[in-house]
């Protein structure tokens, strides 16, 4: 998603054609929509799947929306501009969607910021048993122990992506 966003903003960072990205994010939207339905039915997600698919659904949908709506303007020679973030009169009929999408993403960013713990250990247990000290090794004998690196970094990355995507949507107003 970050790669696609970079390509939209700076043409020199464009990697794949727009049609491929549209297909990718349309598939992502469908997948996370399916995960949403599963969550509503009470299906317990596996530890490797997000328990909050709605933000990912909206993000994929927003990316697909931007790729579908915006024209892939050819960059002028010597410039580093990416896709034109302004819409034609026909495309502007859908600009009313950009503000609620942007507000949702900013709400997601704020929600993530609220849930970032001050002290996050370098690992977390996959079950309800209390976690041991941060210096314990992976061979502690606990089958449920998992090691994850830099979870706060992951949240900061998601916050950054959410802000950037919201900015791109605001540019479409």
């Amino acid at each position: 998603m970050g790669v696609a966003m970079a390509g939209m903003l700076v043409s020199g960072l464009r990697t794949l054609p727009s049609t491929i990205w549209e297909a990718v994010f349309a598939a992502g939207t469908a997948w996370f929509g399916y995960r949403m339905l599963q969550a509503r039915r009470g299906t317990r997600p596996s530890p490797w799947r997000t328990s909050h698919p709605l933000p990912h659904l909206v993000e994929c949908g927003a990316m697909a929306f931007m790729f579908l709506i915006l024209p892939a303007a050819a960059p002028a020679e010597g410039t580093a501009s990416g896709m034109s973030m302004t819409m034609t009169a026909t495309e502007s009929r859908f600009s009313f969607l950009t503000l609620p999408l942007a507000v949702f993403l900013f709400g997601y960013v704020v929600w993530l910021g609220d849930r970032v713990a001050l002290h996050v250990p370098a690992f977390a247990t996959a079950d309800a048993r209390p976690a041991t000290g941060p210096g314990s090794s992976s061979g502690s004998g606990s089958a449920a122990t998992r090691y994850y690196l830099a979870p706060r970094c992951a949240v900061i990355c998601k916050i950054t992506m959410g802000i950037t995507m919201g900015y791109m949507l605001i540019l479409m107003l």
Partner: protein
Amino acid sequence: MTESLAAGRPAAGHAVGRAAAGRAAVGPAALDARRKLQLALGVIWVLDGILQYQPSMFTASFPGMLAESAHGNPAVVAGPITWSANLIGHHVVVLNAIFATIQLALGLGIAWRPTVRLALAASAAWSLAIWWLGEGFGGILAGAASPVSGAPGPVVLYAILAVLLWPADRDPDAPSVAGRFIGRRPAQAVWLVLWGSLAAFALLPASRAPGAISHMLTDSADGAPAWLAWIDTHARTGEGGLTWAAPPGSLASSRPRASPSPSTAPAA
């Protein structure tokens, strides 16, 4: 998955607190009504910051918009507004980037619990500064205050919310979130002053003059997105059918009177 781990998925029996934070995953505290409203304020600040990052705000139109707020204000109020607009006009790129970053940081600071008090205090101070230097106190002292044009100034609401949502409980039994910090009576007074002022501004000549509101709606439609301009245009058209036939307070003055149309047969 990453957000659940980074957030510290709450596990049964874990103590949530600083003492246990280093040894166990810290679960997110429950969101009470005040915290939800704080986060809503944070969203508004983030939105403000991102709007400030728009390319048009890095042009001369931004200081020009600020300078307009000085019109009609006393010299003691207008002088600093003009000075700040000139300063921003000379360094618009750098200063606008700083302003946008500050607003974004306020929103994120309110969201992150360790900095919520600092962010709310900074939010109140920054809001008051913008209310003066950016909005000219909403035109209150210029005699042009109108709820349609934004009086008493939207940013002053941010300062009010920052105070009312301060994370302290002087009156824990207050029936509303607003009264938990400053007390129920002062909170009621704040809302009374706010809504009373809106009502008073609606009765000022700036709002009651013929076509005043339609002109404001026309001005707000300029440069707005197409869907928002459509709303403003249709609101202006609807407002044009209402006129003050008598001084305010009279029932007859509030009855809508349709504009005559050549295609409409007169009522029998």
